[in-house]
């Protein structure tokens, strides 16, 4: 028996030793391939290959376009580009694994929502860019709205290059214009959640088969608070003076909104399965909806109407507020394991300042994927379906060519929209969750349990809201809140707020 056991442990040890050897080989292999394409900064040397991970459904022509992009960048900065796209739903998880396992990469997309920028910056996933920005990113710093660079600082340092786009977030009610016109509805006086009731009622009575108030499980009624941590119920009132963090579920505004939602749900305005619906895109395609809530940007109605193929109109549902979420909506970071951070920064600088490169990355190859109409306008060609990229995640939006239907001063409108946005009181405060990581994981589970069904009105807030609040407390929300308050107070003192 003892012999058997001894032999077993011997086997185990040898296996482990072998495992280390094998994995070490794997590691070496990676760096070797990287080195082969390495080179210095000077011209005439072999160009550096940068690996760029970005979000979006992988497109057929990515490699083809990147070949073209590489020709351009090789001439400008002696670097070639390999782009790897990871689909929307997988991005968070796959990047978590890619970064943790040290997959070679130089540039990667990150944001408040997908592959969390602040947390991953703190975990050391990204390179600190202060010096690199100074050295290789001068033009970039001059081009981008300074609020973006300021708002994406973590503990006083920049870890990424934000895309220049709309700065504030503003909620709007969107309406299917066909139905608005058919029933001659007045949408000019609509703003609060209560004010939409008569409209919902009319449509429900006359068009029973249509989803009156479209929403998916991520819907949250708008209340004038800014959330301290994305996805958790801790928030500060927008007009706060004492910077007190509260549980959003215990605020009178949210309580009222939830009973209204319950009323709407029971009246059948909300789809019965809203709390488990992942996306409303099939409704948008079929046009079988009357209204929903969305985030806007200048000339958004044009954009929506063009993409759905029928007219959509919108009206404001909130003020335009500049929050961490909106500032950190799209960032490109340089990976901590990048072999060529300087080159990567040079590339980011070029991408955000050079219209030729920026539009090539966005729309593909001229004459293949798009056709230029004049200096600032372009039109998609049939091939563009093989290279349909999300513009927001690929750098400075304000360099993009315009669609023929766009207003000529589209980017001017953006600048004005950005200038008019109001700063959230806690803009650029980033919570550090290290000390309460245990509670965060538990609180997250409670949130998943109650959130969607409460927010969509699927359950009665009378009985479920107290239950949810109780469960959050059990999971340690109070400790998280206290820790957040301490950090916020310190931040406030430091920044003289």
């Amino acid at each position, binding site marked *: 028996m003892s012999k058997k056991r001894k032999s077993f442990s011997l086997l185990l040890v040898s296996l482990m030793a072998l*495992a280390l050897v094998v994995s070490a080989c794997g590691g070496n292999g990676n760096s070797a391939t990287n080195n082969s394409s390495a080179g210095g900064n000077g011209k005439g040397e072999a160009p550096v290959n940068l690996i760029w991970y970005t979000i979006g459904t992988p497109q057929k022509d990515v490699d083809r376009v990147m070949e073209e992009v590489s020709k351009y960048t090789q001439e400008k900065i002696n670097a070639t580009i390999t782009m790897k796209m990871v689909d929307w739903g997988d991005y968070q998880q796959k990047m978590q694994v890619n970064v943790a*396992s040290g997959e070679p990469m130089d540039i990667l997309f990150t944001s408040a929502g997908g592959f969390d920028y602040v947390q991953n910056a703190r975990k050391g996933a990204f390179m600190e860019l202060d010096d690199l920005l100074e050295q290789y990113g001068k033009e970039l710093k001059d081009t981008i709205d300074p609020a973006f660079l300021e708002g994406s600082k973590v503990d006083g340092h920049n870890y990424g290059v934000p895309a220049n786009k709309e700065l504030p977030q503003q909620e709007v009610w969107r309406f299917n214009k066909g139905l608005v016109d058919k029933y001659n509805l007045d949408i000019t006086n609509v703003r609060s959640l209560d004010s939409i009731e008569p409209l919902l009622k009319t449509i429900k009575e006359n068009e029973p088969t249509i989803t009156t108030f479209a929403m998916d499980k991520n819907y949250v009624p708008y209340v004038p608070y800014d959330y301290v941590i994305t996805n958790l119920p801790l928030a500060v009132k927008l007009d706060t003076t004492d910077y007190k963090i509260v549980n959003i579920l215990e605020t009178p505004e949210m309580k009222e909104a939830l009973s209204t939602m319950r009323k709407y749900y029971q009246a059948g305005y909300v789809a*019965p399965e809203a709390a488990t619906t992942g996306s409303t895109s099939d409704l948008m395609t079929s046009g079988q909806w009357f209204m929903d809530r969305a985030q806007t940007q200048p000339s958004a109605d044009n954009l929506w109407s063009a993409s759905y193929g029928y007219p959509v109109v919108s009206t404001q549902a909130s003020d335009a507020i500049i929050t961490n979420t909106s500032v950190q909506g799209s960032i490109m970071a340089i990976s*901590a394991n990048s072999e060529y951070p300087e080159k990567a920064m040079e590339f980011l600088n070029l991408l955000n300042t050079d219209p030729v490169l920026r539009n090539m990355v966005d729309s593909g190859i001229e004459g293949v994927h798009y056709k230029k109409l004049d200096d600032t306008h372009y039109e998609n060609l049939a091939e563009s379906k093989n290279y349909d990229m999300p513009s927001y995640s690929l750098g400075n939006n304000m360099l993009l060519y315009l669609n023929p239907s766009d207003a000529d001063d589209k980017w001017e409108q953006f600048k004005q929209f950005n200038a008019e946005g109001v700063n959230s009181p806690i803009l650029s405060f980033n919570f550090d969750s290290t000390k309460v990581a245990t509670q965060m994981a538990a609180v997250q589970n409670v949130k998943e349990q109650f959130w969607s069904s409460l927010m969509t009105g699927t359950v009665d807030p009378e009985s479920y809201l107290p239950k949810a609040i109780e469960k959050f407390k059990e999971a*340690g929300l109070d400790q998280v809140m206290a820790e957040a308050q301490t950090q916020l107070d310190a931040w406030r003192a430091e920044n003289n707020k």
Partner: protein
Amino acid sequence: MYRPIFLRYLLIGGNKVTAFFKTLIKNKVMLFMVLPGALWFFFFSYMPLVGTIVAFKQYRFTREGFWASIVKSEWVGWDNFKFLFSTNDAYLITRNTLFYNLAFIIIGLVLSVAMAILLSELVGKKLAKVYQTGMFLPYFLSWVIVGYFAFSFLSMDRGMLNQVLGWFGVDAIQWYSEPKYWPYILIFVSLWKSIGYNSVVYLASIMGIDKSLYEAAMIDGASKWQQIKGITIPMLSPIIIIMTLLAVGRIFYADFGLFYQVPRDSGTLYAVTNVIDTYVYRGLKTTGEIGMSTAAGLYQSVVGFALVMISNFVVRKIDKDSALF
């Protein structure tokens, strides 16, 4: 079994080396057949064992890659295990995981054995094949698809079940926000998916039972029921015990797809649908703390390992030949 011999030579070494190689050559065909499986286990089960160390670390990225990151991350002792036990959720998810799996094992066993016996007794062998294939099919469906099957029955406004209830004048039920129905739904769906596969395993061993036993029994005037009770089930018992032992070993592993996809991740149902796997997934998909997910995985493995050892020990006490090892 080749394994013990193989190991003994490996250990003794020296003058027995030639003997070891002789054994290797003698059994080369068999060993070669074992090779793919052995390699699979090595790469996917033994190599990752080293990573268990992450459970005791606060994992932080470094420039030099994965191994360097592990080595350089800070030791945090048992901190990563705390979140599992910080709420009474630990009790809830452990209870759900254990009880559902227990139900799957017991009911699944009874039904698959019954199904296997029924199929083996069918006279029309063609028809038996048709049934067998029909029952086997769900096993190959992905849980995402099964989830949509269930949804087409349970949807509040368009589901078949609510329409049938409507004919009888019963009000539509909000299936996805009523926890009380879900233990039954989950057990039903899980059995529907797995019974076909398991019954084929049992059917195969029924086919292997010596037919002369039945002939002898029939001559003695045993009824069908007596034959089943006296021959089929006793002859099946070793395979039943092995299958059950294997299932018990995985009793701490919930079928993620079943508990995540079929209830459509509906929050109101968590009290009866949350199991260890889904709990860990939800807690970590946003925070991305690799240390904590490793800790949860280790906890699962250790308890699962203990359960296999205990049940094997019990089986060995009762019937030594039926034990796994």
